[in-house]
């Protein structure tokens, strides 16, 4: 990653400003310069936003409206049980957890301790067997598959260990994918995807296919894809697991920047203690419970 690209003042300022605009309920039409800004604003119905601010009840779906001082993720007495054959397997056992907005938290623990399961529940990929999972103002345990898909599209940015880029799409086309779920017009989509790639320092690799990129570059494309829609939370599953030390450090630096400059709340599952050091808080999970 090129530091000069990441620190490019114009891109940083634009995105920061845009994010501020999009999240400001009082703000009028979006300016449309930064990734995700329009999507947020498009979905923001003024009435719903006002209701959300007055009462605690969030809209059924839609982007999160931050309320300072409130926790962003609240897991209460969450249990997750899988059935493999006839034997039930309890992976999360009455877990309770609160994460504040703007946090950068690492989740560690031995294999099978339930880290990925917890991450899946927070990201709305799965529902708890019992307990409540309230994320960005939504009660996920009550939502249907379709509502969860919408929730993920609007609130969660995913960063996977294996990058999970679609191999037949170019870098910029991969980054554009989340915007296809919004009403952003196609020309604007391409502009935002390019801006996101500039933010991660890949402005010169936009037309490259994943196979033409190094592991570190692929992961940066994946990060661009995760932030293009301006989500509230970045969910990272072993983001440096497949990378060499140098590339891993670059990715971690980028995540830190997204947390500090762009105020993204980041939840990262990792086995790597040096990755966990970058986080502001590290939690340890063991046999489905937090230590």
């Amino acid at each position, binding site marked *: 990653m090129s530091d000069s690209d990441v620190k490019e003042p114009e891109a940083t300022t634009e995105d920061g400003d845009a994010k501020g605009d999009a999240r400001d309920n009082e703000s009028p039409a979006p300016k449309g310069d930064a990734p995700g800004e329009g999507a947020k604003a498009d979905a923001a119905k003024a009435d719903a936003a006002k209701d959300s601010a007055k009462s605690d009840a969030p809209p059924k779906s839609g982007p999160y409206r931050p309320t300072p001082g409130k926790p962003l993720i609240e897991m209460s007495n969450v249990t997750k049980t899988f059935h493999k054959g006839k034997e039930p397997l309890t992976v999360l056992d009455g877990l309770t957890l609160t994460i504040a907005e703007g946090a950068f938290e690492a989740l560690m623990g031995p294999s099978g301790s339930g880290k*990925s399961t917890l*991450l*899946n529940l927070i*990201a709305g*990929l*799965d529902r708890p067997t019992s307990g409540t999972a309230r994320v960005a103002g939504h009660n996920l345990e009550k939502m249907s*598959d*379709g509502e969860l*898909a*919408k*929730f*993920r*599209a*609007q609130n969660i940015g*995913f960063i*996977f*260990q*294996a990058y*999970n880029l*679609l*191999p*037949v*799409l170019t870098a910029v*086309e991969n980054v554009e*994918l*989340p915007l*296809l*779920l919004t009403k952003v017009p196609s020309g604007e989509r391409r502009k935002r995807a390019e801006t996101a790639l500039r933010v991660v320092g890949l402005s010169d690799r936009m037309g490259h296919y994943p196979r033409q990129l190094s592991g570190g570059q692929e992961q940066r494309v994946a990060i661009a*894809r995760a932030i293009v829609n301006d989500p509230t939370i970045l969910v990272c*599953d*072993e983001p440096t*697991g497949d990378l060499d030390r140098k590339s891993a450090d670059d990715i971690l630096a980028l995540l830190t920047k997204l947390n500090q400059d762009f105020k993204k709340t980041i939840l990262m599952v990792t086995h790597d203690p040096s990755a966990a050091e970058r986080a502001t808080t590290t939690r340890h999970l063991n046999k489905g419970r937090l230590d």
Partner: protein
Amino acid sequence: MVPVKYNIRSLVVRKTTTAAAGLGLALVVFVFASVMMLGNGIRKTMGRAASPNVAVILRKGSDAELSSGISNESLNLVKAAAGQVSASGKGEVVGEVVVVILLDKIGTDGMSNVTVRGVPDGALGFRSTAKVIAGRAPKPGAADEVMVGNGIRGRFKGLEIGESFELKKNRSVKVVGVFSDDGSSNESEVWGDLNAVQSAFGRDGYVSSARVKLDSPGKIDALKAQIESDRQLGLIVMRESVFFEKQSEMTATFMTALGVLIAVFFSLGAMIGAMITMHAQVASRQREIGTLRALGFSKLSILTSFLLESLFLALVGGAIGAGASLAMSFVKITLLNASSWSEIVFTFDPTPAIIVRSMILAGVMGVIGGFLPALRAARVSPVEAMRA
């Protein structure tokens, strides 16, 4: 909506399996379109000679000229009836005799039936679409001269201009010309002098059929009423188009049924091929599908995406098959016509409707073959994206 380029490129990347499934689909569409084109060619060839204001008269109980016989006396009564019906007082009537002879085929061993039509003078004038395209018409009353239809020229020995063949033992005739008739079944016949054919085949005093040309198509019903009401005559009257329809009915229906049958069985195979290909696509793209689901794409959009992929594969295969089938329009095929027991040359006759039907068949195969794999894709859990 998942971008369509994702599906198209995914198919392109897996070239071999895509090509195998696509070619399977192409083959089915090729066979389907070709047989439909042949069925259409048969109907057109047989019906092409039909004139709207011409009636064909046969002996009652016959539905082909070969099995019909009308005496000269009856023919005179038909002429009188035509005169009464026609406004001008005289309808144009020709009596023709139709027989079948065996001739040696060129290029293959063996013989085949050829229809010989004995026509009176002025037969070319009666049929406005028939014209001599090489050589000349036989001289009026010349018993040893014939002309051959363009369709069978060069397919049998002795049917070139200047050559001779035996109409019957010791009755040699010489080919003096070649005629065309708008590609109709007449072009598969030999036309000679009426009296010569009658006497050669012992049909003196009889013709096989009579054709009556009236002022307008509407008058045919009146002629029919008048002739058929005379029970002693024992004749039936039908429009020429109806007559030709009856001649081609059996062969055309057989070809169409055969085509549909082949297409059904072939398409089952091709659909299974498409299904296997799409299943393989889904199986090898579990993580990609999981990722799309994780990003927020709905089950329905995944289902639609994979159905479109299958549809695209089928339509490309279908277009190749339909395109290849168009080349069949350059091919001529000889079939034994069930009603005349003689060979008629048919062409594959493409129409826009056949191409559209073929593409619909391809689309249906794509959608049916792709449905289960697409359903399987839609059921992929977004958690799949997280599996390393």
